[in-house]
């Protein structure tokens, strides 16, 4: 068979399929039994077409005039995408491998051009207002921690002044002025104050009722820690019974249990899709502003998240030990305590500790809307333009979160490691009991202290605000009028694009950075080990601060709007992706590298055959994961001026249009749940 004959034959067999793909993109692939690819091409084409039309109509994206016709130049890449899809069918029919890169590239052009415009990227602002940004940066780096009073005048004493003061002290000179902790620092941590005696002091006979005593009044940082702690304790306790209702292996044994299982899973997913901050704005209509509202918001979101993890853990219980213990003649309670509990308690504890970490992070920002804690202090500080004070807050948050992150990780490791052996020696055992009793009492005291500090009041839960019932009814009556739907959909699209751009930018910066932060590349060589610690340090500090706290900085720099929000998300994305990427690099196996080197390959070939195949799939998987997270975060950055759907939501809440706010929340639930599902499926296919 000659070449021309061969081509002819492949052409004739592929012509009908090519024709189908020409009419409906993806149909040809579908008929070639490449169903997934065909469906994907079809969906992408439709989505891109809709996006081009929508962005042209609303924002004039890619507008060009050809004679009297006004259209978008973005149709051109779409036509090319269409042609690629036809060629793909032909190549497959001729049993050639055809690269998907042009298809991806063309689709990416369209999406990024639209995203760029819709997110309102104004790079010129980054440059023009750089001076403003520099002032803010200088202020943030010179936090208001110490006050110096020189001749009765109070001044902020930042690093320069501090080093001079310490230098004077060390040199034996008398330093100018007297230093003390600044009011800002005391607001953050707490101070001794003369306040009316608490009822505990009266009860214990330490003070008379109504008398004033010197007491430690906790600052917002302590309050925030208490909020995170209380929410974690409450949500763990509530999530345990809930998780049994959402465990398939338990519910399927009960009559009607399967239905209840699906309902519970549905509710948990919906509750989880709504961010803590959004719960905060809903809760304040119930119990009013304050740290208690924050605790409730944190608890609600945590219960949903924990219950899901717990129930999955219950579903994975190994039936073997249960069978074995039952076979020894044990009763139900004995079976649970000897065969079920040992399987689930350690992982439950580990998940609670993980949640503690997350709750502490969220507690730093829930005050933005719910009042209480550091979040509320941030709003007030930034409103007054106190960036030196804000600097102190950021550093304090970073320190607390890094410590919590560390403790949580260490304890989780210890819990999931092999169980410790019981002390056999009675003396040691008594010491052990004493130690646990000591911790127990300490825990109870801390619990009561936090309870008081966060103003937990069951009474206020039972006596909600006067309009609460009306507001809730209004809220669940979702407004589905076309105008509202249109606005909400548009803002949701902006939010998704923000998340996508932030993921892209974060990843682009993280990619080179992650190689510096990989222990196996920089951490083993004494000459480069400082690079490892420096880059890991930068990533950890940036990661410890929530996107909402970055938004207020970027708002000052580039102005209110989706651009500021996108930049804030890009910073958090950079930090998390950088960490995940560097861990993926650390997990590279040496074996394949050795094997490929042994074949006589050049270093470039070794990278292409032994290194890249090991890191590219996890990288892509992390990108999808980050996009998923960013969509969630993007729904709330509008609360601090970051644009997107969060802004729409605060506007509706602020103007008491609860039925419209209900539409927004419903939209968020749907989109976030879909993203969650899609990203999980995609990542499963990848790794």
């Amino acid at each position, binding site marked *: 068979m000659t070449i021309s004959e061969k081509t002819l034959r492949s052409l004739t067999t592929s012509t009908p399929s090519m024709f189908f793909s020409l009419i409906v993109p993806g149909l040809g692939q579908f008929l070639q039994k490449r169903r997934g690819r065909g469906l994907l091409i079809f969906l992408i084409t439709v989505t891109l077409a809709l996006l081009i039309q929508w962005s042209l109509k609303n924002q004039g994206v890619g507008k060009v005039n050809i004679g009297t016709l006004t259209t978008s130049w973005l149709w051109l890449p779409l036509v090319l995408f269409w042609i690629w899809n036809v060629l793909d069918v032909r190549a497959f029919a001729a049993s050639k491998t055809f690269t998907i890169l042009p298809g991806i590239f063309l689709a990416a052009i369209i999406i990024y051009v639209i995203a760029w415009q819709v997110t309102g990227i104004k790079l010129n602002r980054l440059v023009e207002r750089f001076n403003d940004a520099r002032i803010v940066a200088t202020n943030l780096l010179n936090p208001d921690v110490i006050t110096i009073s020189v001749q009765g005048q109070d001044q902020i004493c930042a690093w320069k002044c501090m080093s001079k003061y310490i230098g004077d002290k060390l040199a034996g000179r008398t330093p100018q002025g007297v230093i003390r902790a600044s009011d800002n620092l005391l607001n953050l941590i707490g101070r001794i104050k003369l306040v009316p005696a608490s009822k505990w002091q009266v009860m214990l006979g330490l003070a008379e009722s109504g008398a004033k005593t010197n007491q430690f009044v906790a600052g917002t940082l302590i309050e925030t820690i208490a909020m995170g702690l209380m929410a974690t304790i409450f949500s763990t306790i509530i999530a345990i019974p809930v998780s049994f209702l959402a465990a398939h292996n338990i519910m399927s044994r009960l009559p009607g249990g399967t239905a209840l299982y699906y309902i519970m899973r549905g509710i948990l997913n919906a509750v989880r899709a709504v961010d803590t901050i959004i719960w905060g704005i809903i809760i304040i209509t119930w119990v009013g502003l304050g740290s208690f509202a924050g605790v409730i918001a944190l608890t609600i979101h945590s219960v949903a998240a924990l219950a899901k993890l717990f129930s999955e853990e219950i579903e994975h219980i190994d039936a073997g030990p249960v069978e074995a213990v039952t076979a020894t003649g044990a009763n139900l309670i004995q079976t649970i305590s000897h065969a079920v509990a040992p399987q689930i308690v350690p992982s439950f504890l580990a998940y609670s500790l993980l949640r503690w970490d997350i709750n502490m992070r969220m507690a730093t920002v829930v005050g933005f809307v719910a009042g209480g804690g550091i979040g509320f202090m941030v709003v007030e500080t930034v409103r007054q333009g106190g960036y030196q004070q804000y600097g102190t807050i950021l550093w304090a948050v970073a320190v607390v979160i890094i410590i919590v992150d560390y403790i949580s990780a260490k304890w989780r490791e210890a819990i999931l490691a092999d169980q410790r052996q019981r002390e056999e020696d009675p003396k040691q055992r008594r010491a052990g009991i004493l130690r646990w009793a000591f911790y127990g009492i300490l825990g109870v005291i801390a619990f009561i202290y936090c309870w008081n500090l966060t103003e937990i009041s069951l009474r206020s839960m039972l006596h909600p605000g006067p309009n609460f019932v009306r507001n809730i009814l209004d809220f669940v009556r979702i407004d589905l009028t076309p105008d509202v739907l249109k606005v909400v959909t548009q803002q949701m699209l902006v939010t998704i694009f923000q998340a996508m751009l932030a993921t892209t930018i974060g990843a682009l910066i993280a990619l080179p950075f992650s190689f510096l932060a990989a222990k196996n590349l920089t951490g083993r060589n004494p000459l480069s080990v400082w690079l490892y610690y420096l880059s890991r340090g930068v990533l950890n500090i940036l990661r410890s601060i929530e996107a909402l706290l970055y938004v207020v900085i970027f708002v000052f720099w580039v102005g209110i709007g989706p651009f500021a929000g996108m930049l804030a998300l890009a910073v958090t994305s950079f930090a998390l992706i950088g960490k995940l990427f560097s861990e993926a690099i650390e997990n590279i196996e040496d074996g394949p590298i050795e*094997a490929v080197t042994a074949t006589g390959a050049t270093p470039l070939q070794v990278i292409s055959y032994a290194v890249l195949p090991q890191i590219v*799939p996890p990288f892509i998987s992390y990108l999808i994961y980050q996009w998923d997270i960013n969509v969630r975060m993007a729904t709330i950055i509008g609360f601090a001026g970051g644009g997107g759907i969060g802004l729409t939501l605060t506007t509706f809440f602020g103007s008491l249009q609860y039925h419209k706010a209900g539409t927004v929340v419903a939209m968020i639930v749907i989109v976030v749940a879909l993203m969650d599902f899609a990203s999980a499926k995609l990542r499963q296919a990848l790794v």
Partner: protein
Amino acid sequence: MLKVENLTKVYPNGTQALKDVSFEVKDGEFLAVIGLSGSGKSTLLRCINRLIEPTSGKIYWDGQDITAIPTSEMRKIRRQIGMIFQQFNLVKRSSVLTNVFSGRLGYVNTLSSSLHLFSAEDKAKALASLEQVGLANKAHVRADSLSGGQQQRVGIARALMQDPRLILADEPVASLDPVLAHSILKYLEQLNKDRGITVLCSLHFLDLVHRYATSAIALKDGELVFQGLPKQIDDSQFKAIYGQEAERVSIV
């Protein structure tokens, strides 16, 4: 073809892995390297293709000392020496075919091969290599979806892509079931007998040495303690190599 002279390797942490080892491998031999774990077998094999740089001593390949040649020339030598590993060392997420292709890297252009472009001949060769180890139908599956024995056969196919004159096998069957061990060693034996490829293979079990090897060397604490025919390893030799407490065991 291969001659090792006074080979010594001291690791940076002070461990002396090889002490003054000298021996010679003739064309077409199936040479077994035996010894306890940690006796220096792996180090010896890796010094021969310079995955590990020897501290001192000489290695002659076709009469040329390869311990001193530059890396670009070493790559040309390496492509004549196939290597298979205890842990198979496949790229798990890549397809079987891609893993086999990687055996051809020493012969092809760096740039095009880095983009995973191969000629039709190389493609046919890869499929033929897979055919030889009975895995032609697995060419397009991911490497980690194969069983251990199958992965090791892919490892052999990868080595075959190099058109090797020598195969270094570092405990090729230590991670496999005894039954599979025979199957893998039979492939090596076949290559040795039919194609005349010299094989240098470290092994744990003396049984396997007796069954497959044409000659043997033994290492103990980095020193060469035996050199000769496999059947010459009697009980006293065995105790000298493996220590007084050792008992002979056999598999299958």
